[in-house]
């Protein structure tokens, strides 16, 4: 009897501890930031967002993240396809390298890009001779975003290609379809959900990226200042309301993306 009682007390303790941890660590901060941004009413939130530097930063981030996402959708589709369909020496090495951007610390990625694209590097010199500067300008931000979000599309496309029934492809060939036609009519539609959900995750990550971008973006307000760096700057200059307003905008967007991706995935697996 005492044993049972002890057992019950223990499990109650564990349950409440875990739930409390969950609520305090995850739910509380997220609710808190929404509360903070609305604490002075809607008009204050809108005023903070229509601050020229703020909305220019958001627009710039969205624009560059979109470019990075398109690049990644193209590269990722190709690389995912090659890594699943072809057998060649070095394949497993490449496949392990895919996860590298997730493993590397973002600040280290920023430093890598800084060294690689800087004016003293080969790439920097070459671009300079063509009359471009990469570092501290938009291209550097895009390259950093592409690097950081590289694995998303590949990892989303690969399982779909593995599942794809080879007989569908063969049937298309047998019926006389050309290679290109088979690709666009049979293979690409099968990969499409992966490309879309991978791209959405990549876009959302690129929007939020800080570490890799802060070191290579010039951080000039209105020109090379991205949203996450703007938020950081507002915190540093003791304007939490301005930081919270832009944060809430980004957060809401990311949550919607995450939700859509979840719905797409459960619909696919639930089928």
């Amino acid at each position, binding site marked *: 009897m005492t044993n049972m009682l002890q*057992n019950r007390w223990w499990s109650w303790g564990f*349950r409440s*501890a*875990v739930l409390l*941890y*969950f609520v305090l*660590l*995850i739910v*509380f*901060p*997220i609710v*808190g*930031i929404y509360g*903070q941004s609305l604490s002075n009413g809607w008009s204050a939130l809108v005023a903070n967002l229509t601050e020229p530097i703020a909305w220019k930063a958001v627009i710039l981030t969205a624009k560059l993240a979109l470019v990075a996402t398109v690049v990644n959708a193209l*590269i990722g589709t*190709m690389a995912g396809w*090659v890594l699943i369909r*072809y057998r060649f020496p070095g394949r497993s090495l*490449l496949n*392990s*390298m895919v996860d590298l*951007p997730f*493993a*590397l*610390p*973002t*600040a*280290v*990625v*920023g*430093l*890598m*890009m*800084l*060294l*690689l694209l800087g004016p003293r*590097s080969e790439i920097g010199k070459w671009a300079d001779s063509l009359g471009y500067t990469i570092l501290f300008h938009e291209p550097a931000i895009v390259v950093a975003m592409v*690097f950081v979000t*590289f694995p998303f599309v590949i990892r989303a496309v690969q399982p779909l290609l593995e599942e794809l029934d080879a007989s569908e492809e063969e049937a298309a060939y047998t019926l006389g379809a050309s*290679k290109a036609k088979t690709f666009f009519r049979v293979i690409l539609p099968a990969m499409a959900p992966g490309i879309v959900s991978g791209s959405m995750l990549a876009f959302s990550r690129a929007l*939020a990226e*800080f*570490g890799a971008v*802060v*070191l290579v973006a010039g951080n000039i307000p209105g020109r090379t200042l991205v949203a*996450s760096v703007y*938020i*950081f700057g507002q*915190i540093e200059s003791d304007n*939490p309301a301005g*930081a*919270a307003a832009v*944060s809430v905008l*980004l*957060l809401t967007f*990311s*949550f919607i993306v*995450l*939700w859509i991706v*979840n719905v797409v995935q459960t619909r696919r697996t639930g089928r």
Partner: protein
Amino acid sequence: MKALWITLTFIVFAVLLGAPVVRIAYGAWDEGWSGFSEGLTRPEAVHALMMTGLIVVIVTLINGLFGVMLALYLVRAKWLGPQVKRIMNSIVDLPFAVSPVIGGLMIVLLLGPDTALGSLLDQAGVKIVYALPGMVIATLFVTFPLIIREVMPVLQEIGDQQEEAAHLLGAYGWTTFWRVTWPSIRWSVVYGVVLTVARTLGEFGAVLVVSGNILFKTQTATTLVYEDVENFNLTAANAVALVLAACSVGLLLFMEWAKSRRAS
């Protein structure tokens, strides 16, 4: 056609992934061995690396414990309704969607010196923001989903028949867990822990906001790299960055090795 695509993939990987890693690997030796060792053995680097190590240990322990338990509850618990479980399950992923800087901002907004809670704790002599506890909390937030997401699918896959059998045979909750559940989730916990360690080592945005990046106090390895770059001390930054990169690549290789070993 096939050769073209393979070559193109190799080029993309070499330029996009290979070149930056190679650059950082030899950049640390720009001033020879002395530049590298100088970058690592200066007092601020030693302190920053120790700080990072300390945070890794604390965060891994706490999130390891709570992560495994929450995963168990989310899959098995009968005292949580299915609706509640579903909502909690989607909330678990939210930290993935939160930019690290925003994660840090949340902690500052809730527990910063200007807030009610923060000043209350301050009076009690507990400093959270701009001190170790805040940095730990920020990292806990960011790494929260990793272990849960590794463990939950395995728990769902193995089902609860064995556990029920053990229970029917009279085993206590703890015995059932250690003898039946633990052996099957052990490896997924290891993966989750490796991911947590890697993420904690590299956490930058959230820690930068919460720590204030105070030299010899709250500076971690990643925020030291950031400060070195801002001060144009590139060789020193590169030395620390190389150590961090080597750690994360090592962890990645360990994961690959463990997964391939288990698959075979």
